[in-house]
């Protein structure tokens, strides 16, 4: 089967943790992207460092691909476990499954698709003097399958790998030549497709990378984090960007330190973000309230995984919606928004950071593992807001919490060039007077609470300037979702015989009532990755709807597009 009569082609690579499955997938995705294919790369991995079973999939097409596929046209197994696990994950009988015949001994008398084994382990023993790298085999086999040249294979490896280059190239070439000799066996499975015009602006980007770069474009100076999957890659990515992008990524001693150090940096005038998954975010609660009270602009990134507690570390979920909506104790305005694509992750991070600064309020960007850790060919929308600090008119004496009509007080920072010796800038976690000094008196307490409430109303109103919901599709039953569920629906939309319109909630809080009014009293379907139906409950709390079906998935995995399309056909 070729791509010309099939919309999307998929590759699956499986092996042990530590064998470079994800790296091979990344390299392959980059090669496809260079050839102007749209790609979607997803990584399924366990919370362990060596052994176990990891696999990555790369789906690609000449049109946008929004989600990963469970069945593949090209499968590459580094070991027996992968061979057995993915034995039936072929997309058709013409699919091709390469395996390591030093390890796996499949039933080749009755194969479900084309099977070809190569002695990868023996070959590596022969070639490598340095530590071996079986992931080279995946890249080489992909190059044969895609009919790319040996020279391109060599230059790709040189570009993408830093260590053991010579042995890697020798091994990759040996596998390449072996597979090329069998090219007649695989002709039917080859994708054989002409790609589009080159798209210069594309970059292979994960949701987390997009969040990081969007916030950075909006002025991010500091990111504080403590490792917790699936938020860690924001910390890692920004740490790499530190020298070139003048952004400082700090791994602190705990999430409590993360949130409080971040608040310190904001007090000194730095645009700052923090991030974690549910467990770590829970530890930041008190500081989140401090940000509400002290009017600290802070971008807080919550990347969900299955919970509660430690839950399932490396898989996806959307069960933190009520948690995100109710962050922190006490009365103050919360903003929660969830990107529905990596591009939106970029623009939303910038938008939210700017809103935080304009209104001196903490904001939450809610993502999930599937959106944050999957990669696509993204084009960053660069026309995002940038909050430019203006120097307040000095009505002496300066008051950090000066009461204004809109509730927004002028900002100044100690140590800035605009602060004179007489200016005192006091931020406070206690209820306070306009000067920032603590108070427990009734009247100023009411004044300050009213000020923050006015500011909160203005902030809620300001979100209307942004795209708070996104609609995909023209007609049919509305299907409501947020986060990576929107990606699942968009890919399933390609295959579902019954039409449906995807209503993606980008802003969850404030609830986008105005935009959703057109769906009042409609019969809808809701898709979410939780057992309790949190999104459905939240929708019903805010508007009148008839929920025909609430699709709930809570096994940590994303839907395969065909599987979801079939499910939607049943419930629509």
């Amino acid at each position: 089967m070729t791509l010309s009569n099939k919309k999307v082609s998929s590759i699956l690579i499986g092996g042990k943790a530590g064998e470079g499955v994800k790296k091979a997938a990344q390299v392959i995705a980059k090669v496809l992207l260079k050839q102007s294919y749209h790609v979607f790369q997803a990584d399924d991995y366990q919370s362990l460092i060596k052994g176990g079973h990891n696999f990555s999939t790369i789906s690609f097409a000449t049109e946008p691909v929004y989600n990963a596929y469970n069945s593949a046209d090209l499968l590459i197994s580094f070991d027996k476990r992968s061979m057995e696990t993915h034995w039936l994950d072929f997309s058709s009988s013409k699919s091709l499954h390469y395996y390591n015949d030093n390890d796996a001994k499949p039933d080749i008398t009755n194969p479900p698709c084309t099977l070809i084994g190569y002695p990868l382990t023996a070959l590596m023993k022969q070639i490598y003097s340095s530590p071996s790298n079986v992931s080279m085999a995946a890249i080489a086999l992909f190059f044969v399958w895609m009919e790319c040249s040996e020279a391109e294979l060599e230059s790709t490896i040189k570009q993408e790998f830093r260590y053991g280059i010579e042995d890697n190239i020798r091994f990759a070439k040996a596998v390449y030549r072996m597979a090329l000799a069998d090219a007649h066996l695989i002709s039917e499975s080859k994708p054989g497709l002409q790609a589009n015009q080159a798209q210069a602006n594309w970059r292979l980007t994960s949701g987390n990378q997009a969040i990081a770069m969007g916030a950075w474009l909006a002025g991010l100076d500091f990111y504080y984090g403590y490792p917790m999957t699936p938020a860690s890659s924001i910390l890692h990515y920004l740490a790499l960007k530190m020298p070139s992008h003048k952004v400082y990524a700090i791994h602190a001693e705990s999430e409590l330190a993360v949130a409080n150090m971040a608040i310190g940096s904001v007090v000194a005038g730095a645009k700052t973000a923090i991030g974690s998954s549910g467990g770590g975010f829970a530890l930041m609660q008190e500081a989140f309230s401090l940000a509400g009270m002290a009017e600290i602009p802070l971008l807080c990134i919550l990347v969900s995984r299955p919970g509660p507690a430690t839950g399932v570390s490396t898989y996806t979920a959307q069960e933190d919606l009520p948690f995100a909506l109710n962050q922190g104790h006490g009365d103050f305005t919360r903003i929660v928004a969830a990107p529905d694509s990596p591009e939106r992750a970029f623009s939303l991070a910038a938008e939210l950071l700017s809103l935080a600064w304009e209104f001196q309020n903490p904001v939450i960007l809610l993502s999930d593992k599937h959106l944050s850790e999957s990669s696509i060919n993204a084009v960053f929308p660069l026309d995002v807001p940038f909050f430019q600090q203006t120097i307040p008119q000095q009505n002496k004496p300066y008051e950090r919490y000066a009461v204004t009509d809109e509730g927004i007080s002028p900002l100044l920072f100690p140590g800035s060039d605009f602060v004179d010796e007489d200016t005192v800038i006091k931020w406070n976690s206690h209820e306070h007077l306009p000067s920032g000094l603590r108070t427990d008196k009734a009247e100023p307490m009411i004044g300050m609470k009213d000020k923050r409430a006015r500011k909160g109303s203005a902030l809620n109103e300001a979100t209307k300037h942004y795209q708070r919901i996104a609609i995909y599709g023209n007609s049919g039953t509305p299907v409501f979702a947020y986060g990576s569920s929107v990606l699942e629906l968009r890919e399933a939309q390609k295959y579902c015989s019954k039409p449906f319109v995807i209503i993606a909630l980008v802003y969850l809080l404030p609830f986008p009532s105005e935009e959703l009014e057109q769906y009042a009293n409609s019969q809808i379907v809701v898709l979410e990755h939780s057992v309790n139906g949190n999104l459905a409950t939240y929708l019903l709390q805010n508007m009148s709807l008839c929920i025909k079906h609430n699709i709930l998935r809570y096994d940590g995995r994303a839907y395969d597009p065909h599987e979801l399309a079939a499910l939607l056909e049943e419930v629509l």
Partner: protein
Amino acid sequence: MRELGTHKENTWCSGCGNFGILTAVKKAITALVEDNIKLSNIAITCGIGCHGKIFDYLALSGIYGLHGRGTATAQGLKLANPKLHVISFGGDGDSLGEGLEHTLFAAKRNMDITLILFNNGTYGLTTGQFSPLSNNGYKGLSTPLGNIERPFRAIPLLLEAGASFVARGYSAKIDHLASLIQQAVLHKGFSLIEVMQPCVSYNNTYADLNNRVKMLEITPNEITQSVKLAADPEHVYLGIFYRQLLPVYHEELYQNANPVLDSLSHQQRLELLSK
């Protein structure tokens, strides 16, 4: 120089050791201004407890933070704008209980900030429960039969964690304390001043301290000697126990840059991203 106090009504108990500390801080700041440090480049942080009220009594910029987190917010301030001289006030329950991790890590990083630790051996503001520095046997509302734990020793603990300037003062020896604070702020690296301070309501140690305090004659060269003197069972030594110049965190991170003052413009960011 302008007034360093505020109009805020002081609510410490009459006779509280905090008054001595407040006076010493003001004296130290005045001396620092004479050393050409600008008031606009000084920032203060604190946690929650009786010590924290000093924030309201000082006309200096900063943040009155959360219980235990004053050292964390102080580090964030310093990292964002290294031009700032950051002084963090902490109580014994605050800095060595709720926020112990931040105190140890600030020392470990040799973060260039000063921690003034108000050691009154009790939780004053929450009505006298035992603190991490309370003596064994201390009786409070939560330990009516006596504290069954033994106290931390702040100076050995912080020395082990990596503090590069460690001193001890006494709230009743104001000029000495002021001089310690001044030197601590000028020290490049993490500086700790443990201030022995009676709590007149719950742990009145005036008589005991007056009997036992003794000035250190010299700053020991050997850290083992510092630890020995700090933990001396008989005398409460006052003075500088340890002083060493070591690399500081912000310079290891970004050398002479200033993240806030050198923050890239929107245009610079756009250009870098379009590359």
